[in-house]
């Protein structure tokens, strides 16, 4: 039994968006979801987290069917960062504290404050921990949203384009923070991302989507000029530089 098992997942709006998708995720692995705009990356992530209900097929986490899990139990297993997050009128500290909600019974307790503080320190948010979240820059806020998700102590982290609004420095910084934190805590990550080079730098595995199906799923050996041509319809050269695979537009 694998940590996450997706079986025959199908999802339809007016047309079929996900078509009989099956794949497994090992505990602690970092997976990049690749595919053109409209390929169904967001839809797949939302199906994994019950924001959308699959037309058919099922998802198992730790052997449990997510359809049978209560919202709170599900939130203890997986956290999700939306493609478009909005700040509430609250401080950064309070925003991250809300990530503790799946573990709260009547009210927050000392442990919740400690976890919040620990994450603030780990992600280096001390400098603006008591600022209002709506006064932060896009990059700063993105880290806060990650911190909130990590405060949930999930086993699976679902990130929908976490780096799209960030400058190149922050893109690397955010990915690095997640990679290191999740490696340490053995959290699996599924991240939809458009920057293939960034994905190559941080991921263990790649899931390439095309026409609502999995085109390829595997380690970096599946990233080839041909697979990229097939998925994105562009010509690239795949090179190896400083022992890391990269792509260059042709």
């Amino acid at each position: 039994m694998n940590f996450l098992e997706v079986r025959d997942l199908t999802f339809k709006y007016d047309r079929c968006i996900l078509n009989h998708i099956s794949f497994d995720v090992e505990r602690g692995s970092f997976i990049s979801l690749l595919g053109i705009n409209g390929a169904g990356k967001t839809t797949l992530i939302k199906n994994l987290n019950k924001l959308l209900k699959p037309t058919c097929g099922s998802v198992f986490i730790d052997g449990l069917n997510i359809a049978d899990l209560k919202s709170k139990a599900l939130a203890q297993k997986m956290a999700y960062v939306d493609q478009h997050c909005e700040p509430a009128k609250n401080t950064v500290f309070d925003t991250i504290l809300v990530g503790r909600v799946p573990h709260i019974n009547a009210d927050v307790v000392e442990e919740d404050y400690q976890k919040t503080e620990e994450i603030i320190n780990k992600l280096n948010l001390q400098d603006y921990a008591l600022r209002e979240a709506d006064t932060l820059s896009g990059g700063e806020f993105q880290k806060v949203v990650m911190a909130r998700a990590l405060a949930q102590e999930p086993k699976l982290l679902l990130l929908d384009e976490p780096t799209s609004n960030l400058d190149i420095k922050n893109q690397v910084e955010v990915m690095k923070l997640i990679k290191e934190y999740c490696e340490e805590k053995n959290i699996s990550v599924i991240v939809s991302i458009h920057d293939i080079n960034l994905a190559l730098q941080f991921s263990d595995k790649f899931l390439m989507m095309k026409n609502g199906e999995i085109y390829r799923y595997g380690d970096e050996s599946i990233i080839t000029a041909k697979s990229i041509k097939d998925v994105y319809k562009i010509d690239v050269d795949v090179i190896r530089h400083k022992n890391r695979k990269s792509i260059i537009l042709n």
Partner: protein
Amino acid sequence: MDLRGGCITEKDLRVKYAAYINKKNVFLLFLLIMLCITSIASLNIGSSNMTVGQSIMTLLGKGSKQFNHIVFNIRLPRVIGGLFVGMSMALSGMIIQSTLNNPLASPSTLGISNASAFGANIALIVFSTMGITSTPIVTSAVSFLAAMLCMILVIGISNIKGAGKTFVILAGVALNSLFAAAITVIQYLADETQLATAVSWTFGDLGRITYPQIKIVSATTLLSALVVYMMRWSYNAMDMGERTAHSIGVNTKNMRNISIFLAALNTGVSVAFVGMIGFVGLLAPQITKRVIGEDKRYMLPGTLLMGALVVILSDSMARSLWAPIVLPVGAITSFLGALLFLYILFKKR
């Protein structure tokens, strides 16, 4: 409330957070004191010349027969009623704004206030045309029923598959204008006496409230506030948007239904007994949020106190500005509220 800037070392983060929370508590205390002062002052406003000492003695049970009558039968119900009506409207506004994630949402944007007024107009005009004279109890009952009808419609709409927040608000605005149109038609067909009764009913008036009604309003308000307080962390999650709230383990559909239900219940009860008191539902939560943020652990008590304060203050002004003429309290809340609101909006851009 602004603690931005400055390097915060690991050690004093919790200390600074505690100081920040403390400021919220100070603000709550400030509101409480203001509310006490305003309420006592409000007891002293009226056409008979009682001194502050006399009214306090009367309250303590040492008043003359005449003073007893004035304080206990006329002024006290007005003040207590105002307290709970204010809390009830503010609470309704807060939960609707939080679940629909929209600072402009309130029971009136969901059509509920106009539905109540529509019900009252049916009782006061349509019934009377049919030869039935509507007692205040009947008017209140019909008004409340209309609010509940509207609530059922809104909850139904909100549960349509794929209905987003904007969809619910737009549908609410449509319902609101439907009820407003219906009111206009009914009033157009009314005779002059009926029209006068209906219009004066619509202006909020705290003087109408009786002790049995106060029991109903206070029970509704306090129970609803308790429910909301128990769900304060879920509301905190809702403030980050429905999808995020869902991913933190909050049943967003339930939250919406419960919020619409409680808001309609509170608005329905208040409007049925004292008529329309505009803007409190929008204003009280917004001011509170701008001062102490929207952490519901503090915003909820803050909003309740603020709602009560706004209504009591407005009612005091309504009775003293043009004394002995009593202005409609709703006009004052809207006027004062709008000014205060603009001020805060500009100051805290």
